[in-house]
């Protein structure tokens, strides 16, 4: 699309773009060189700083930490899906005494900082929640419980909104036709709307998984033994914070990039086959209802 902003270049513009490319390249490379020199000056590239990562013990330690992160993310997403389904059903109900509390709960958990929620659960319900952590064999079961339940409440509230938007994105004619052949509301939902909505929502659900995976790093604050927290043990032991931060960032980025590109691929495929899909970044938008889906542009 960006090609609309400038003409097909003629000879003079091609020269200008070439000059721009070179200058831009020099600036970008220059920033990188300054940063790398700075790192090198402080001995970040000294082999001593990186050596710990060649040690099988440290590698195993990192893999175990990564597994703790993944475990927290998986449990949190599974619980959030259940929470989201229950509260989306409440929100779509015809009965006000179900709908109003569901709206209040969803909006509350979307508006409160996740860390505040996790701290509250950790300080107030740590003991009650630690069976959850013991069940997955966490070393800090109360931190695991608080982290996972906090993630469940926040991501569940976001997912509830996503589910609602997904149901709303199924063409009206589908439910109208179902009602006209005499199905009840629960049957229309179960047999007509949900099967179609799931395909529409899948990309948005997967990118919510990226959000949840990233947010497990909040376990750092309450001492859950996830990747970042265990990274702290590594950099405190070996005094190599910058290399450790880079290694851990690389692990997160690789996993999340894989998940995000899967979501984007799925969205394109769904859009092609079903004609519409919730955009993957729908979950990022907080504080207002998830927008209705625009019909496919092609």
């Amino acid at each position: 699309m960006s090609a609309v902003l400038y003409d097909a270049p003629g000879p003079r513009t091609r020269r200008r773009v070439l000059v721009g490319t070179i200058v831009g390249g020099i600036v970008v490379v220059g920033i990188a060189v300054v940063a790398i020199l700075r790192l090198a000056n402080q001995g970040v590239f000294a082999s001593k700083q990186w050596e710990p990562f060649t040690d099988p013990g440290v590698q195993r330690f990192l893999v175990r930490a990564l597994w703790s992160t993944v475990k927290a993310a998986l449990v949190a997403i599974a619980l959030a899906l259940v929470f989201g389904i229950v509260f989306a059903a409440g929100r779509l109900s015809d009965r006000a005494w179900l709908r109003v509390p569901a709206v209040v709960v969803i909006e509350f958990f979307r508006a409160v900082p996740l860390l505040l929620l996790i701290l509250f659960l950790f300080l107030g319900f740590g003991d009650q929640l630690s069976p959850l952590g013991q069940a997955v064999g966490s070393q800090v079961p109360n931190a695991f419980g608080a982290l996972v339940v906090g993630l469940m409440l926040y991501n569940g509230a976001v997912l509830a909104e996503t589910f609602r938007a997904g149901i709303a994105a199924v063409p009206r004619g589908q439910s109208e036709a179902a009602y006209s052949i005499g199905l009840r509301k629960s049957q229309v939902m179960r047999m007509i709307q949900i099967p179609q909505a799931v395909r529409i929502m899948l990309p948005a659900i997967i990118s919510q998984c990226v959000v949840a995976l990233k947010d497990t790093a909040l376990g750092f604050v309450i001492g859950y033994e996830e990747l970042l927290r265990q990274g702290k043990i590594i950099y405190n032991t070996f005094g190599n914070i910058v290399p450790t931060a880079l290694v851990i960032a690389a692990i997160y980025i690789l996993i999340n990039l894989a998940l995000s590109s899967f979501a984007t691929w799925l969205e394109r495929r769904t859009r092609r086959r079903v004609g519409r899909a919730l955009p993957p970044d729908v979950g990022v938008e907080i504080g207002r209802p998830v927008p209705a889906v625009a019909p496919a542009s092609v």
Partner: protein
Amino acid sequence: MQVLLDNLPALLRGFRETLYLSAISAVFALVLGTLLAAMRVSPIPTLRAAGAAYVNIVRNTPLTLIFVFMLFGLPRLDLGVPPFQAAVLALGLYTAAFVCEAVRSGVNAVPVGQAEASRAIGLTFGNTLRLVILPQAIRSVLPPLGSIFIALTKNSAIAEFFGVSEATKVFDDLSRDNPDALYALFIGVAVGYVILTLSIAGAFRWLEARLVVLR
């Protein structure tokens, strides 16, 4: 309840700090994000690639990790800054990636005829972007920008662990001192955040009503 009243000054100071932190980071993120969006739609391949790389790296890194790097990593590079500035850096750099993507989607939503007309009257790429495209693009993405700034305000809570005495830090300290009043403190601070986020949402709705591009 009594705890909330007794510690009202501390709580208000905390929320003032949250507000400062969020506002300064928001301005930083808006400027950097718009710049990155301009890079991503520019005709120069290196700038496009650099912008895309920035967004993909930063969007997929946990904010807590960025905080750790700014607070504990920078001092090791002799670039240490006080906690508040480090928090602004972390929040601003992180949020800029999301601002960039929002603005870019706005640029894509501006009708093709606008860019064509600008080119037809001889504006350069920079002028087209600055005078014609971006003013319309930013207006059309006010709703997602509002959501991003609400997320930023909520994310500023992470600064509590890194030595900034904002609202969540006040909650953390007070509830460790008064474990009996945990519920009251949580509800009080949560309501404070809800008021803050609703105000931002309201402000953006007002802006939207005033600045909306009618088509």
